[in-house]
């Protein structure tokens, strides 16, 4: 049943591209998420409003539409904005860059909410104490707030990370040669769509299982020295 007719290599290459796009958009999404969370907690109302608008808007859109909007729409928007300043420039976006940007923006909108809640869960007294020790604000974040917020945020981030892994398949729609598209190409020649799509689904399953094992490991590591509530 799993005779891949010599397409095994192609599919392995595609799976590797899937892993690349996953890692790249995860990194981008975490950065967007952290910036969004800090903006949501900003003292300036304008910055807070902008961050809320970003996360509320994106979370109401389907992943596929976000990808289409970012890949086809964003370059036009940028070109129009620049032309207001008299600059004539069109940004060429590759499917890989467009996919990573879209998935990163999507992940960031959810991660922003998760980080915000986690940062708020750090006891206020600790932050005041850190300030009383004259730690600069940046150090308060780096040494006191973020390590503890990270632990609280991990379960929520884990769910979103699994969703991100699966959402990478959508980037095939804008023509990136990842696992899904390589599989489609193979079915066009071999006329064995069930065999190939089923194989692809098992590869995705293996990737999501690996991701969830990694998340468990991180959660375990982040809660060193913490007494957890017993249920």
């Amino acid at each position: 049943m799993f005779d891949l007719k010599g397409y095994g290599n192609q599919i392995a290459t595609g799976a590797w591209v899937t892993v690349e796009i996953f890692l790249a958009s995860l990194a981008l999404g975490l950065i967007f998420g952290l910036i969004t969370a800090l903006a949501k907690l900003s003292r300036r109302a304008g910055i807070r409003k902008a961050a809320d608008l970003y996360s509320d808007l994106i979370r109401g859109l389907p992943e596929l539409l976000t990808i289409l909007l970012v890949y086809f729409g964003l370059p036009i928007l940028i070109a129009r904005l620049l032309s207001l300043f008299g600059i004539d420039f069109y940004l060429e976006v590759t499917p890989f860059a467009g996919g990573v940007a879209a998935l990163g923006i999507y992940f960031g909108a959810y991660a922003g909410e998760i980080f915000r809640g986690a940062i708020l869960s750090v006891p206020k007294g600790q932050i005041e104490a850190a300030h009383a020790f004259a730690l600069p604000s940046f150090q308060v974040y780096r040494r006191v707030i973020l390590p503890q917020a990270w632990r609280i945020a991990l379960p929520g981030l884990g769910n979103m990370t699994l969703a991100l892994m699966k959402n990478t398949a959508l980037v095939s729609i804008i023509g990136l040669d990842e696992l899904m598209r390589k599989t489609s190409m193979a079915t066009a020649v071999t006329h064995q769509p069930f065999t190939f799509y089923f194989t692809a689904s098992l590869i995705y399953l293996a990737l999501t299982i690996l991701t969830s094992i990694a998340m468990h490991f991180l959660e375990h590591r982040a809660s060193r020295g913490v007494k957890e509530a017993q249920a």
Partner: protein
Amino acid sequence: MIPDLIVESLAPLLKSSVLTIHLTCLTLAIGACLALPLALGRLSRNRWIAGFCFVYVYYFRGTPLLVQIFLIYYGLPQIGLTFSAYVSALLSLSLNTAAYTAEIIRGGIQAVPAGEIESASAMGMKRRQVLYRIILPQMVGFALPAYGNEIILQIKATSLASTITLMDLTGMARTLAADTYAPLEIFSVAGVIYLVMVFSTSKCVTWMEKRWTVYRS
């Protein structure tokens, strides 16, 4: 020129969002019917039933919906089962949401205090009565917040029906964007329609949660 385009695209986009709503409601209903037996199966003492339900839930939650749709629409004909695009979308979206809903229901069932179930059987209720009178009514209250999220995720998931030629909101938007060469405007209008659907749904869910759990306050 740009405002004209938005006005002209609004009518076909709104018309196609009827299919989006139709797919959402129908697949959620079919999914919920499949989910209850799946959730009870996961909690079953029979190892084969529990094992089957476990594999089902993990397969459908661990693989992308896009693969599931392609597997049913393009893949099944290889083994002699051919479905139309509409039926394939209906099937894959229902099977997919069933797996997620089953886990939500299972969580709701397990949140019912064991003492209540024990006292119900001590009062002489049969297992079926305990299920219908004690477990399920409370399960709904526990499961509603998570199920509200699932409804919203399902509205968004139906956009994948466009990948197998269905003309739902995303499908129509993709066609119009290709015809007019104005992807920014068309996809933005489609996005606004999705936002309206998602926000009104989440308002409804909050209201329903309050109604179902009045006894708690």
